[in-house]
């Protein structure tokens, strides 16, 4: 068995709207090793959520469609699987937690039943066993008196509690891969830390690999082994977290890092990347970041740079980097 659990290659997911085609994900490639945590970083609209939904094959269709590329999971191309086989993977081998714990649970069913449902669906256990396991999972996520909480409804719980329920549900079948789409964005800072800690703890316990979708670089530093930075539907830089923070190569990554306010420095004005993310329907001919890039040269506006490996495991797509795109 190889070390690579997931390999996304040149994934393209486009949305076909009346106004035109939106290439939300346009040639994304990355890989993930077993048990490792990869952070996918980017602004809103960079395509990180669509990438994760593409892996689950849960793109709302119409209007969305995966138009190209491959997603190898354990050596099997998920995009070639019939829907029935894909259902056996969802929630079982790959599961997902979402940004909005308040609305991600069904309001009319007890949380225990909602967790048990995944177990009954994938592991063929009966209702009673599934409920016992659900209570056990709730206990693992640190919910006090889980045997009581399992019989409560989502509206009786706080946001943090509900996200714990989502984690319990996602991990109940011991998946090999957990995709967490901004799991802490909607939570208070103190709860955020608790949830991240819980995820790390359970990752160690179950050996789950995690794709952590986030725009929060603090979360990246805290959680991830490696990171992929996305901009306008493409990966622009991929590196280990240490490399990324110490020596960011892409001007966009540098801009993101520079945007973090520091306590020890007193500045008149906080740094920000000038301009806004371009409309995906009318991307510039060259590098998508060029119009906002402080270092852009004329060739940046003419042609798109490819994502190339500049050193082992280190990839970047920028004309200005030595050996990058060159």
């Amino acid at each position, binding site marked *: 068995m190889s070390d690579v659990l997931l390999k996304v290659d040149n994934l393209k997911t486009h949305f076909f709207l009346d106004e035109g085609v939106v290439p939300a994900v346009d040639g994304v490639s990355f890989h993930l090793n077993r048990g490792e945590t990869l952070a996918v970083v980017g602004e809103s609209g960079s395509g990180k959520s669509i990438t994760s939904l593409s892996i*689950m094959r*849960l793109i709302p269709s119409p209007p969305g469609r995966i138009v190209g590329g491959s997603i190898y999971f354990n050596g099997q191309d998920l995009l070639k699987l019939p829907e029935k086989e894909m*259902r*056996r*993977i*969802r*929630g*079982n081998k790959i*599961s*997902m937690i*979402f940004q*909005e714990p308040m*609305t*991600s*649970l*069904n*309001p*009319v*069913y007890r949380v225990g039943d909602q967790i048990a*449902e*995944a177990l009954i*669906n*994938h592991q063929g256990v009966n209702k009673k066993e599934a409920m016992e396991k659900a209570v056990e999972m709730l206990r693992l996520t640190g919910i006090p008196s889980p045997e009581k909480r399992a019989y409560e*409804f989502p*509206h009786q719980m706080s946001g943090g509690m509900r996200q714990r329920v*989502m984690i319990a*549900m996602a991990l109940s079948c011991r998946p090999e891969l957990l995709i967490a789409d901004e799991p802490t964005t909607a939570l208070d800072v103190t709860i955020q830390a608790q949830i991240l800690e819980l995820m790390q703890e359970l990752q160690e316990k179950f050996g789950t690999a995690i794709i952590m979708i986030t725009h929060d670089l603090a979360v990246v530093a805290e959680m991830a082994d490696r990171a992929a930075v996305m901009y306008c539907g493409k990966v622009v830089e991929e590196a280990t977290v240490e490399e990324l923070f110490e020596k960011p190569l892409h001007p966009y990554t540098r801009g993101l890092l520079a945007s973090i306010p520091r306590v020890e420095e007193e500045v008149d004005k906080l740094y920000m990347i000038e301009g806004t993310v371009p409309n995906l329907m009318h991307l510039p001919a060259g590098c998508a970041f060029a119009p906002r890039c402080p270092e852009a040269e004329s060739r940046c506006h003419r042609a798109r740079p490819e994502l190339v490996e500049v050193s082992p495991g280190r990839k970047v797509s920028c004309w200005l980097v030595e050996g990058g795109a060159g």
Partner: protein
Amino acid sequence: MLRYFLKRLLMLIPVLLGVSLFVFLVLHLLTPDPALVVLGQHATAEQAEALRESLGLNDPLYVQFGRFLWDLLHGDFGRSLMTHAPVLEEILARFPATVELALAAIIIATVVGVTVGVISAVKQYSIFDYLSMIGALLGVSMPIFWLGLMMIIVFSLTLHLLPVNGRIDIGMEPAHITGLYVVDSILTGNWESLKSALKHLVMPATALASYSTAIIARMTRSTMLEVIRQDYIRTARAKGLKEKVVIYKHALRNALIPVVTVIGLQLGVLMGGAVLTETVFSWPGIGSRMVDAILASDYPLVQGTVIFTATVFVVVNLIVDLLYAWLDPRIKYS
């Protein structure tokens, strides 16, 4: 829950009081002299005066209303001017027919309406969606008496498949248990009666259901469209559930909450006697009885029927409100 129920029951009192007052006033101000109705136009002035005196019609209006209320509280709805039988007896004799028709109609409307609504929402903008929504538009705009007559012409007079009117073939009535012929036939195992009762029921029930079916289908479609875009539906799919389970277990139950209100209101309306349908199909329910009573200026019977149907309407609505708590655990009554 019990407290809420009792509170709601108490709130029925002012509602029914209002209805009683309104009906009483309207009928006393607008109907012709009951004495003339009873005695006919050849009665002498003395005879009419004597009858008015005996009916208490010479008393001031508030005394009459007080007496009317007092009698109501004792379950006395007065006597019909036409038959001289107690009004309540007249109503109760007809009520099972109305209940049977209303229940049959609401079952058809719910099953067809919800199914069509769900499929339309799941396959939005498909041919099925367009056709069923056109059908729903026809359903709400087609006059029931016209639809009923067309059905009679096609299925009874042309194809000879179904009887034109009535509840059951003469002499086929099952033993009386609930008064609903279909139910009684099943309870007594009388399959010949059941067949006859169903044959009589299917056309009026379908005609009566047309409007409710359309309303329920449109309501289900719009709430389903809203619900299937919710985050928890994505969660259900991410769990690897079959699409059928996602739609019918996770989405439908949430979508049904507003639909139940509509079903309840429709049932309340239908229980109050489907005047047009009962008249077209000569269905012996309280709706057709009320038409007879109005035509004969039988004001105690009209009065009694209105108050009775109003009571049924509010009670059905109360039951629907209690149903919510079962459907939606977020609703807590206190």
